[in-house]
């Protein structure tokens, strides 16, 4: 017995279980906050009819740390290290999104060198994030003791190369605090570009292997093809952006359509797939990895000369004062459109933001769960969750 879905493949998230089948003996399986494949602390209550999911109810908020409230008491320069920990897998994106919004409010122009470097760092971060995604997705499909962990460790081996590059630049492997209002804090050294070239040639060779594995491994294809189909209309309504939206056939990428940093000086080839299933999203991400490799290779040698920061160096935390205004700045993170909406001024004076709202792409991805999971089996639930690439740090903040 399987749940009948409408022609548009959208389940009813508010399904009253008595309407489903009064005779069915539904089992409630709590895929709890502690589970090997919930990508962070995420809870899902699955109502199962045998192995088929009838209703899926997600619960978030286990990682809610009150970042938005904290930021109301922090000055504009103190916010950066805090939001680093939102999307803890791609910290560069968080920092850039925040600082873009503040630069917009202050009217500061970011020098070309900083914009160029930010682009390179963003693309490197995208490679690292997609590598992590691929590893954990295969881990979900195959198990930590088994085939999944082999690919997981290979991906992490490549990711270490990128993290070494970041450590060379900023001193931190993770959570860098390298962006500031007006530019970057750390500037590149002469040998850095060479290091990047070496790393990305290794990564490029491996992405061909990974794409072959995803498309040509029969079991992988069986587990991901036709699973978790999100049609384009539902994706847009939910606010899904990034690989999930592009995997459903919508040709939209902020890097090409609303260029920021130095994306107007480089060509970004947007990857889309029409199928909308897990396989489509996986292919979009792997191809995006290759695209990022190409962009980095093109850009890393030509970093233009100039200052690395357009705003005076921050000596006192309270030196940056923004009187009033509302701004929204967004960028294309590996998960979708990561945006920052800031209201400045108001009751908190000029040194701290009045209201900081971070628009997390993962929360919208998780909101898709009640719509697409019913009708699939328990094994598919983990595959779907993995393919949406949720990071609970940014979903819950």
């Amino acid at each position, binding site marked *: 017995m399987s749940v009948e879905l409408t022609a548009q493949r959208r389940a009813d998230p508010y399904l009253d279980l008595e309407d489903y089948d009064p005779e069915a003996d539904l*089992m*409630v*399986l*709590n895929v709890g906050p502690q*589970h*090997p*494949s919930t990508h962070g602390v995420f809870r899902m209550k699955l109502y199962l009819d045998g*192995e088929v999911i009838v209703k899926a109810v997600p619960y978030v908020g286990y990682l809610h740390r009150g970042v938005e409230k904290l930021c109301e008491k922090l000055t504009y320069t103190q916010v950066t290290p805090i939001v680093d920990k939102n999307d803890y897998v791609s910290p560069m994106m968080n920092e850039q999104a925040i600082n873009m919004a503040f630069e917009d409010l202050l009217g500061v122009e970011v020098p070309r060198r900083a914009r160029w470097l930010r682009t390179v760092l963003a693309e490197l971060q995208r490679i690292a994030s997609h590598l992590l995604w691929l590893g954990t997705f*295969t*881990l*979900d*499909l*195959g*198990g*930590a*003791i*088994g*085939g*999944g*962990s*082999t690919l997981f*460790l*290979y991906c992490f*081996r490549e990711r270490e190369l990128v993290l070494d590059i970041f450590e060379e630049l900023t001193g931190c492997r993770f959570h860098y605090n390298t962006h500031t209002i007006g530019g970057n804090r750390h500037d590149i050294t002469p040998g850095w570009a060479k290091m990047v070239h070496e790393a990305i040639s290794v990564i490029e060779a491996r992405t061909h292997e990974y794409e072959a594995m995803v498309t040509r*491994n029969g*079991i*992988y294809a*069986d*587990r991901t093809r036709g699973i978790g189909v999100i049609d384009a209309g539902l994706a847009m309504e939910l606010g899904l952006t990034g690989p999930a939206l592009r995997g459903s056939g919508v040709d939209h990428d902020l890097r090409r359509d609303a260029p920021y940093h130095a994306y107007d000086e480089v060509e970004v080839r947007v990857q889309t797939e029409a199928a909308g299933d897990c396989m489509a999203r996986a292919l979009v991400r792997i191809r995006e990895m290759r695209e990022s490799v190409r962009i980095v290779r093109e850009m890393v040698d030509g970093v233009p000369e100039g200052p690395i920061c357009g705003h005076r160096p921050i000596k006192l935390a309270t030196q940056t004062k923004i009187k009033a205004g509302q701004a929204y700045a967004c960028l294309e993170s590996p998960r979708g459109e990561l945006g920052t909406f800031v209201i400045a001024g108001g009751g908190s004076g000029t040194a701290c933001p009045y209201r900081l709202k971070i628009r997390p792409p993962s929360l919208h991805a998780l909101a898709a769960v009640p719509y697409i999971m019913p009708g699939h*089996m*328990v*094994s*598919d*639930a*983990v595959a779907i969750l993995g393919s949406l690439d949720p990071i609970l740090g940014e979903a819950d903040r």
Partner: protein
Amino acid sequence: MSFLLHGLLYGAVVGSVLLTVTAWAVWFERKFSARMQSRLGPTIVGPVGLLQPIADALKLMQKETIFPDNADRFLFRAAPPFMVVFSLATAAVVPFGPDMIAADLDIGVLYILALAGLMLFPVWIGGWASNNKFALLAAMRGIAQGVSYELPLVLSALVPVVLAGSMSLSVIVSFQAEHGWFIVWPPGPGLIAFGIFFVASLAETNRIPFDIPEAESELVAGVTTEYTGMKFGFFYLAEYLHTLVSAAVAAALFFGGWHGPWVSGLHWFVLKTLVLFVSIFWIRWTLVRFRADQLMRLCWKWLVPISLVVLMAAAVAVQLGEGR
């Protein structure tokens, strides 16, 4: 030697040797998988980590046994030892050498297949008695998978029986020693039957890609979710033991057991078993797992019809005079 003494002696020897080999098979798997994943594996305890199994056993033995609320007291405790006992019992009819066999039963193959069927019970009992939904789901999946894959296992194991004309494993091995290994002669049925037997054994021992009863990323730890300490150790040990014995049985049925060029004997048997064992690991650490219904589809739509056809082909080969 009296029957009882023979049995006791062989039982003690085979049992202890197998348990020791299994413990070091765990070490070997960890090293092998580590090298496959570009890391090192156990290196600290003993040279090259060779004392790791001892460390693991000591660790498991001193862990606290947590008994879940509302779990069935007797069944929860009974499941792990039964698994080990059944796995060890399968080794009783395996011919390790020309005259080295613990119990030379006439119905050796039937005994092995019966025990393979019995092995489903501890899995099921353990999962149900844990009073845990994940374990219950895993137990149900385990039963479904185990019962389904018994058919191709039985049908493909019958091919050597038909070709050799006897169910006794020692007779099958001597037949292969005389006429040629079943994997290559008669050309066709033996090879396909071995393929199906191998796949069905992977499914019976719950190895990836058929490890849905223990699907670690979906069902936490499957049947063993609520087991701690040495009870978990028994399940773990039993799984490896079962795999090792399945490899040994496959070597005996299809690869000619202890027979080999130059000097036949125990060493050839050990070599063949190890080669099969290593290939089981290799597959485990490479592939992702099937979904439950895809697994069933593979079994019922592909393996069962093919094994039926192969069995009939073997029977035809025998009738045409090539078998006997």
